[in-house]
């Protein structure tokens, strides 16, 4: 019985749409009605047959945002808003029941679009990735087509549109509605969302915004001021500010500049007195403009999100690698501590409280300090994501790194040579740099393992470059790298080995960069990795 209850509860949870519909309060309903009527009033120009068929109809975008946020509960106030807009803004010569029917029909149509969007995209995912964006535009384009068709057919039936004009009317209403929703909805959606508002505010409050506004104004002037006489052949100039904004600030930038350009467009169209047909053509272009901007913006957002996630992963992986190296260092003093501690017990048990005990306790204290030092380094790494820099002699560093490989070299018949190293120091986190060198050497050993015996050599060398850089090179007689390999080599999770995650080189590069250096692979017939570190020729330190 209990199990049954549990299951049924789970099922209802799963079948719920992901976006939880909020409670629609009086204030929200009022905001919807007032906003809808205001938008409709502001955008009522170039009407077809005096009807709500205009080149730009952003009011439904507001309706859709409310439908998405509040579910079907927002449909009645939306119907009311449509009705009020028809009465106040247009004052049509039709009966109230007919108006009511139109309002209910439109609200139902938008409600259906909103419902599909909620189901398909769960509300949260619409403007966060390309897929959501694509689905959203598809649903809006298809949805507005059907509402336009229904709307126009009703109007034809009521005799408000001549029957022979129905195709043109559907086309115009579709463009007006579609463009209105496609261009305005992302902005309205963000405005009604707490996080969206924060992002928008951060986007607007930049010095670059001034430049963007100027560029948009300039583009509008070129497109309409200069281009008016030549069939708007400079319309494409308008792409520049929107691409600029999208490429710099992601979707928020694209949304804002699309709105800016849309308003500028409407203003230009109004003040220059274009013919209605031209206005519709311009709107069709505008929607392309806006969508291109949105997609660039969304791609940028996605890419930034992924790169942030990747940086986090890399940092964790680098930390993991570091933790592995440090765990050994930490376990040594802990081993000594526990052995000394047990020895102290032993001494006490046999009543030896003299110098032996004192000495053991003193050693325990010094071991605990040693452990604390390791922990401090690990903590510093986690805190800063970087490093504990100390002067390290290059002449010590390289042979020490190579020392760990001598037995492996002997076993695998690899000639490992360490070239004479220039005197000087690097400011480095020694364990981290050792991780990099070990990694490079291990890769070099793997690279030569397939070569015939006698032709397996690995060479570790260092040359000073310029005044303050040292280039540590790990060369091997392996097959080398192609251009494609070299480009993909440092991508994480791209391993040529069957074991391992392929994070080694990505982490190594991250460590090199954290040291103000660099790490790259050269393309050629043998393996060459160059690891650059800032270098001081003269050793002032001790």
């Amino acid at each position: 019985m209990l199990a049954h209850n549990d299951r049924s509860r789970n099922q209802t949870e799963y079948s719920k749409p992901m976006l939880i519909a909020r409670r629609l309060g009086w204030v929200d309903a009022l905001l919807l009605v007032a906003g809808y009527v205001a938008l409709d009033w502001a955008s009522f120009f170039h009407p077809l047959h005096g009807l709500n068929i205009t080149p730009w109809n952003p009011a439904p975008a507001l309706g859709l945002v409310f439908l998405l946020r509040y579910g079907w509960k927002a449909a009645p106030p939306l119907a009311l808003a449509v009705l009020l807009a028809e009465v106040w803004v247009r004052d049509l010569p039709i009966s109230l029941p007919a108006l009511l029917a139109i309002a209910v029909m439109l609200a139902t149509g938008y409600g259906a679009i909103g419902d599909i969007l909620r189901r398909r995209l769960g509300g949260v995912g619409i403007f966060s990735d390309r897929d959501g964006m694509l689905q959203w535009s598809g649903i809006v384009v298809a949805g507005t087509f059907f509402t336009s068709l229904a709307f126009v057919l009703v109007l034809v039936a009521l005799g408000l549109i001549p029957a022979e004009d129905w195709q043109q009317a559907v086309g115009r209403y579709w463009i007006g509605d579609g463009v209105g929703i496609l261009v305005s909805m992302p902005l309205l959606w963000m405005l009604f969302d707490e996080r969206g508002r924060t992002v928008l505010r951060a986007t607007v409050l930049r010095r670059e915004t001034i430049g963007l506004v100027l560029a948009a104004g300039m583009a509008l002037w070129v497109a309409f001021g200069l281009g008016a006489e030549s069939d708007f052949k400079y319309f494409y100039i308008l792409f520049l500010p929107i691409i600029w904004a999208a490429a710099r600030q992601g979707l928020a930038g694209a949304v804002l500049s699309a709105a800016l350009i849309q308003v500028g467009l409407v203003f230009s169209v109004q003040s220059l007195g274009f013919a209605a047909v031209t206005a519709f053509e311009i709107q069709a272009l505008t929607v392309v403009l806006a969508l291109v901007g949105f997609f660039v913006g969304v791609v940028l957002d996605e890419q930034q999100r992924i790169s942030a996630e990747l940086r986090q992963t890399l940092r964790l992986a680098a930390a993991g690698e570091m933790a592995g190296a440090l765990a050994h260092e930490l376990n040594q003093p802990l081993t000594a501590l526990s052995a000394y501690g047990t020895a102290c017990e032993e001494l006490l048990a046999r009543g030896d409280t003299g110098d032996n005990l004192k000495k053991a306790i003193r050693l325990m204290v010094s071991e605990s300090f040693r452990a604390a030092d390791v922990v401090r380094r690990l903590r510093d790494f986690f805190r800063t994501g970087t490093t504990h820099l100390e002067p390290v002699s290059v002449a010590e560093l390289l042979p020490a790194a190579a020392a760990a490989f001598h037995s492996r070299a002997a076993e695998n018949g690899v000639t490992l040579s360490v070239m004479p190293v220039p005197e000087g120091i690097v400011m480095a986190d020694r364990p981290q740099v050792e991780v990099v060198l070990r990694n490079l050497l291990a890769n070099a050993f793997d690279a030569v393992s397939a070569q015939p015996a006698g032709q397996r050599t690995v060479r570790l060398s260092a040359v000073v470059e310029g005044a303050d850089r040292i280039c540590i090179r790990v060369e091997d007689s392996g097959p080398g790298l192609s251009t494609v390999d070299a480009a993909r080599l440092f991508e994480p999770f791209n391993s040529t080995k069957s074991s391992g995650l392929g994070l080694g080189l990505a982490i190594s590069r991250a460590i090199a960069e954290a040291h103000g250096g660099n790490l790259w692979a050269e393309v050629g017939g043998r393996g060459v990795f160059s690891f650059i570190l800032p270098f001081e020729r003269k050793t002032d330190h001790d």
Partner: protein
Amino acid sequence: MTDMTVFIVDDDPAVRDSLGLLLGLRGYRTAIFADAESFLGAYAADWCGCVLIDIRMPGMDGLALQKHLRERQCNLPVIVMTGHGDVESAREAFKAQALDFLEKPLDQARLAAAIDDALDRCAASRQESGQRARFAELLKTLTPREREVMDMIVAGGHNRDIAERLGISPRTVEVHKARVMQKLKVDGVAQLVRFSLETR
């Protein structure tokens, strides 16, 4: 037990010093080496006891040392210690017949158990090898015929078969067999078979 030594090979001075102190207090004889090379340099075949080896050491690492010891036919039991117990090195260590694999920081009880186990084994194997040496000596006291009979017994022959093949009476075989057992100081056929197989 007194001449058995725990050999500690670890590059960390504090670790080997503390282990030396502790094991010394517990009554073990200890010898300390800072690296694999110095241990190998000092190694003598008559050493008895066990070796505690740290895996990660500069120069020759613990696993390589283990291999070298096996190549030298050294049968000192080996206990491997490691700072990070990765499966791969544990596998390597056990493949090279490590007796135990201890993670640092060491659990003192497990360490003590491992060392005692190792020393017991060493003692047992020394006893075995002593017995084997004695057995080899005793074998020389057998007459050729007795030796012949013994080999047939070890190969699994019955008294009657042996008598038939050697052309003597089963009763004579019985007599030879009793003499063999007596001379070699074994309690039964099973022990005789085991010893003779081991000395072969």
